[in-house]
């Protein structure tokens, strides 16, 4: 009877065998999956699907898009995973006319660049070319840009110190006033190094001082509103504000 109770090991072997096999299969399967996933990744990385297809540039107005792309050193066709947004942003911010930049990957195939341009407060002539002056007072050289901002041309600023000082004032002047000015001529005299003459778009001449241009020029629209349209006039904004009519 005792013997009957004993289950032969032989009987149990098939079950054990099966369990062992199942376990082995599972392991194999997971290895295989891993293998294929890796293969898939490699295939993806090798395929054109992981290449940059479009570079999206937003927020630029005067800087040509191509120039920003050039600064980013990105190329269509290079691998999107090899792009480190922070590095790219750093490269783009080397551009003298760019104030802020944000770079982002937009999967699957797009890099998005969003820039904030520096405010240009004037142009200064160099040879046959105009160079932009940023509100920080720097003259930006060797940069291609579009002269679409309606800001004044600076003339005769032979001393950069006064140009910087003027830029400081211009920074305070809102765009809607800035665009009324066509040219700013520096006309220093022995007694007054700060003297400037403004040619306005509407034909009036303004005599002013670099020192308090920002606080005074804002009243320009209301001053000329009182003038007879045909009357030629010089508007003095140096000491006190008054209008001198010309014959």
């Amino acid at each position: 009877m005792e013997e009957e109770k004993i289950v032969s090991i032989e009987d149990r072997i098939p079950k054990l065998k099966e369990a062992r096999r199942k376990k082995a299969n599972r392991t194999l399967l997971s290895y295989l999956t891993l293998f294929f996933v890796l293969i898939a990744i490699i295939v993806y990385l090798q395929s054109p699907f992981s290449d940059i297809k479009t570079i999206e540039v937003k927020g630029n107005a005067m800087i040509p898009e191509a120039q920003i792309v050039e600064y980013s050193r990105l190329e269509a066709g290079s691998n999107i995973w090899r792009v480190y947004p922070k590095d790219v942003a750093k490269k783009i911010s080397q551009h003298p006319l760019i104030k802020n930049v944000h770079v982002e990957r937009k999967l699957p195939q797009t890099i998005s660049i969003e820039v904030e341009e520096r405010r240009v407060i004037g142009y200064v002539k160099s040879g046959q070319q105009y160079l932009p002056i940023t509100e920080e007072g720097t003259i930006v050289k060797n940069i291609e840009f579009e002269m679409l901002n309606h800001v004044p041309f600076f003339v005769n600023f032979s001393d950069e110190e006064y140009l910087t000082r003027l830029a400081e004032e211009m920074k305070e002047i809102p765009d809607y006033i800035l665009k009324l000015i066509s040219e700013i001529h520096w006309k220093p005299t022995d007694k007054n190094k700060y003297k400037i003459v403004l040619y306005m778009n509407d034909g009036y001449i303004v005599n002013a001082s670099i020192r308090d241009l920002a606080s005074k020029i804002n009243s320009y629209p209301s001053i000329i509103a009182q003038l007879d349209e045909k009357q030629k006039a010089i508007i003095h904004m140096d000491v006190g504000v008054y209008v001198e009519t010309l014959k």
Partner: protein
Amino acid sequence: MPKKRSMNKMVSFIMVLFLSIFLVITGRFIYIQASGEVDDVSLRDWASELRETEMVLPAERGKIYDENGNLLAYNRPTYRLYAIIDPEISTNSPTPLHVVDPKGTAEKLAPIIDMDPKEIESIIREGQKNERFQVEFGKKGKNLSKQQMEEIKALNLPGINFMEDSLRYYANGMFASHIIGFTRPDEETDELRGVIGIENKYDKILKGEDGYIKYERDYYNHKLLKSNDIIKPPKNGDDIYLTINQKIQILLEDVMSEVDEKYNPERMSAIVMNAKTGEILALSNRPSFNPNRIMELENWYNDAISTPVEPGSTVKMFTWAAAIDSGNYNGNELFPSGKYQVNPQIEPIHDHNEGKGWGRITYDEGFRRSSNVAASRLVWEKMGTETFYEYLQRFHFDQPTGIDLPNETPGQILYNWPSEKLRTAFGQGSTVTPIQQMKAATAIVNEGKMLKPFVVKKIVDSDTGETIKEYKPEVVGEPIKKETAEKMIELLHDVIEGEGGTGKKFRLEHYSVIGKTGTAQIPNEQGGGYMRGRENYIFSFLGMAPKEDPQIMIHVSVKQPKLKPTETGSDPVSYIFRNVMENSLRYMEIEPDQETEKSSVDAITFPNIEGKRVTEAKKILEKEGIKPIIVGNGQKVAGTNKKPDEIIFPNEKVVLVTDKPVMPNIKNWSKADVYQLASLLGVELIESGNGYAVKQSIKEGEPIKKDAILKVTFKAPKTE
């Protein structure tokens, strides 16, 4: 025993001798002890002289402030450079304490103190030759600023040292220079002394009193342990607060400098006064000087108070006031203007338009036209010369104003002969100063009460901060009645606003003005009579504003300005007056009493017209009050130079480019506008010159081809 006796004798002799010597010496001791004197020298004094040493504690000169407590004059430490050249001083020192390398030292010092290095070197070498202990470097080595001192110290030059001096410093440079004045070291005592202005008038108060410290010392100059110190602290000079207002004064100085540059007159002066109190708010003369650099001194005189001149027509206001006040005036009465001759012996009086006059006019009109004939008639026929003389005295034209500034020189009334009496009526012959006229005019704006002008507001103890003395407005007379004053204000207003008034140029934008113009002839110094030529006058104006309750009074006079053919002598005068008056009133927050036509403009938000039909776009814009310039004759809007929602003003050029653009006429367009047009049209712009367009290479009406080249010549506008 004769031997023994003689011996005894000997002994007693010696004893007596010693005794007497002893007595003489002790006697002398006792005497000295008691009397304390040797050879008439008090030993006590002599001892303390030997022992005591005294140091002066200099009093600091008082500061000068404006009415709001802004510093105008104060003392600034300066540094005097000296070089120790005696090598003995370095004997026990690890580092040299004297100048080791004269040449190198000189070269390093030279650029900082702006002196020739050779000169510095030769001063040092000279000193070494004469075995001097130290040398100084004259003017260039004195009065160095702290910055220069620090720069030199940073060089670490052995033997180069500094002594601290104090320099009177005037914070604003050329600023009320004739009022504040300046100081100069006394030639003997080297003490600062005020030369002109407040510095001079209040020298004693500003100077204070030097103190001293006394202590006792031993032979080696060390202070004794139980020294009897005597300290008398210095009494620092008191501070003076002026009635000058820094803001208004700076404004005045700026305007004066500008006029000086533009018109280059012989002389100019201007006074700004608080019409209600007599406080001088600003005063400036040209030529002037910078008290920090007295070398450039051109003009010592405070012309406004020290140079009486024949004033011209501004005094007519007092002639009229006298006639009205004495009850001898009817403003509507007519008189023949042009020429007036009292009797054949007296030269006739002419009106200023070469004696043509204006026919028969009223006396009121005579005032605003500044008629000499009217003035003469009022004195001669209406009130009589004696009454007029009495009023001149009542207005204090015969005495100084008593303003608290030194060197006031009042004018002189010439009133002996009929012609002198007549000419005084319109400001010739007799002389007055600007300040005298202002004082008299305070009666007109203060209901007949005349105020004394003053420049010092208060004196404050600089140590305790307590006010020692405060000056208040002072009524010094009542030359005219209240009603007279009111009538005069109306007459003075007509000068500015009335028909034919001579003061039209003095109108202000926001405030009503009253005042009287003056054009005084200048006596010819070679030969008699007056100078000729249209520049050879003193042009002046005495005015107040606002009319209803005058707060500020300004007198401006400009002598012999250089005028362009289009300019008149009142141009520089009115320029100064208007700028200073308008801005001072505004600064004092006086309510404007005059409407300006329109003080602000409405900005327009640019509508979105992109892609619309031209006719429709035009309609939208015109509704907003914009008149666009339409480029070409296409049907559709291809582009504009304004963005939607952009803020624009009515004067701005709005360009509408149609889909079939042709070249517009761009004559007189600004460069910025032309650039915008070029970029709208897509043409390349080649420009030359600055200013406004005078020439364009693509003719008006020619169709625009893409990438065409547009050449534009610009020309600067006339600014005269």
